[in-house]
């Protein structure tokens, strides 16, 4: 749900959390990105950094340049000017990520955790149980059946938060409690209503269902897709997961190792928000 008005929460003397709504959905997130773009374009003196997230964004500012109150007023004015309508079109890249579902690396990671916490149901079985899916094959089909929206990046360089664009493909998953101390680089995880791809070996809390050999972060900018940026994704990109078998997985792994791997990135499409929302509503109705 979108709030009636923006809610401002001070984060110390140099940051403000601006909350637009209370939910993980495309519409709220899309408005977050529109407002963040408007704030960025306004070039407000003293504004230092912006972090768009799912239903809110953070503004870092220099309080010796602009006051908390003045900055809140400026953002409110921009929101009033922008309107709360969700329409228009934007350039949105479509990136296809190859995934070996239920692979050895993530299975080993889950088993290592279960040595310490034996009561933990293995991740794919837990997700199947909570989402009424009969088996792993059905989970793989559901997960790979939709495009995803890159709603936000954060927590770690290049880590993405992906929202399923097809409402019928929504999968929910609880987060690990306590979190894992280690996750393999390239693991594909589910948490809340989100999918993420671990860009590096890091701690983590999402349930793991597969692994991609295709890097989403390249700190040394070795691969050709990373010459302009260390991270693959930008907010507003779309992602599709393509199930691969071990043979294709190994082939991609080898091409990454020799430095010739190229991501499958479609860069000529325009994403129509109006048409998407109509389509999503129709999808939901059809499944009732």
């Amino acid at each position, binding site marked *: 749900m979108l709030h009636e008005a923006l809610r401002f929460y001070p984060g110390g003397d140099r940051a403000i959390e601006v909350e637009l709504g209370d939910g993980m959905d495309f519409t709220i997130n899309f408005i977050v990105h529109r407002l963040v773009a408007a704030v960025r374009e306004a070039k407000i003196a003293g504004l*230092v950094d912006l972090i*768009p997230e*799912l239903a809110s964004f953070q503004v*870092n500012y220099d*309080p*010796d340049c602009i006051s908390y109150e003045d900055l809140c007023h400026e953002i409110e004015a921009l929101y009033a000017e922008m309107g709360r309508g969700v329409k228009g079109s934007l350039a949105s890249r479509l990136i296809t990520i190859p995934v070996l579902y239920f692979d050895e690396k993530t299975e080993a990671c889950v088993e290592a955790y279960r040595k310490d916490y034996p009561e933990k149901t293995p991740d794919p079985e837990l997700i199947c149980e909570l989402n009424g899916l009969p088996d792993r094959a059905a989970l793989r089909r559901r997960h790979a059946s939709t495009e995803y929206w890159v709603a*936000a990046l954060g927590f770690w360089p290049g880590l993405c938060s992906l929202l399923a664009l097809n409402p019928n493909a929504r999968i929910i998953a609880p987060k690990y409690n306590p979190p894992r101390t280690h996750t393999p680089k390239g693991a594909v995880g589910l948490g*809340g209503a989100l999918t993420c791809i671990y860009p590096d070996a890091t701690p983590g809390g999402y349930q793991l269902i597969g692994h991609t050999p295709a890097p989403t972060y390249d*700190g040394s900018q070795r691969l050709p897709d990373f010459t302009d940026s260390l991270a693959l994704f930008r907010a507003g990109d779309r992602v599709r997961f393509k199930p691969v078998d071990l043979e294709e997985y190994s082939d991609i792994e080898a091409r990454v190792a020799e430095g010739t791997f190229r991501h499958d990135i479609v860069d000529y499409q325009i994403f129509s928000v109006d048409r998407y929302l109509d389509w999503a509503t129709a999808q939901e109705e059809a499944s009732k």
Partner: protein
Amino acid sequence: MSRTITTVKPGLQTCVQELPGREGFLEQGFPLSGPFDAWSFRQANILVGNDRDTAALECQFMGPTLTFDADMLIAITGGDMSPALDGAPFPMYTTVAVSAGQMLTMGFAKTGARAYLAVSGGIATEPVLGSRAVFHQAGVGGHALVAGQTLPVGGSEASALHVLPEDARPVLATDRVWEVEALCGPNDDWLDEATIEMFFSTDWKIQSKSSRTGIRLTGPDFGFSDKALNKSPDHGQDPSNIIDHGYPMGAVNLAGQTPIILVNDAPSTGGFINPFTIASAALWKLAQAKPHETLRFRRVNRDGAAALRAEIDAKTKPEILENA
């Protein structure tokens, strides 16, 4: 003769840092990084004639052993790691002219936890995403120093020798108790009233698993408000879960029942609430507090935080320097 510094022993985790840090990339998940104790960092720089935000070395818990491959000015501030040149101890907060071939040794921190070494001309490593600040864990801007590594140093005409007046230096707690100024918010309304009082009246112990990512605290349990207990399922099951949001620098992040103060190398976003935030001008205290020491939080508002900023700002300007 090249203007470089050579690492003989790297110390525990010695990193190049620079201000203001890696601004503009938080939205891609890159932390700000930069010096943990910006007060001491800036004082080291002004002592060697640099702009106060110039790249310098941050030494954690145990300092490095380095040789200087050219003549330059150096200054060391922050925690006392018993610096010595060719075996002869020398005072901190004082400009020292070193000659090519001299060796600097530093030991364990006797006071504080982090020392800053500035050199005239600054450390001239290649900036990554606009900054020389190192995010060691992900190798952004480089890693912590390793034995044998050389660091390039920028050119400088500086030759003046200065001392930083005693009353302008940060006072490092000697009784192992730190009073740290903090503000309520952004998510204090997720806690019950009694817990907010409890936070500001508790002696919090710093856990040993603390670093530039976060300072973990041990103390009483937190109680939650209705907002945390009766919320949309999108936020997650635990009372401390919230829909992923931005994490301010210095936020007191509550993961389950463990408060973790998020500092320079912390995640930029995540799914836990931040009920309190440390005043920006008090963050340096967290850099100098050691594991097992005690933090007591003193509640300030934005005006109080501004007064602290102004005080430290005045103490990190070259006008305050005295001639050696």
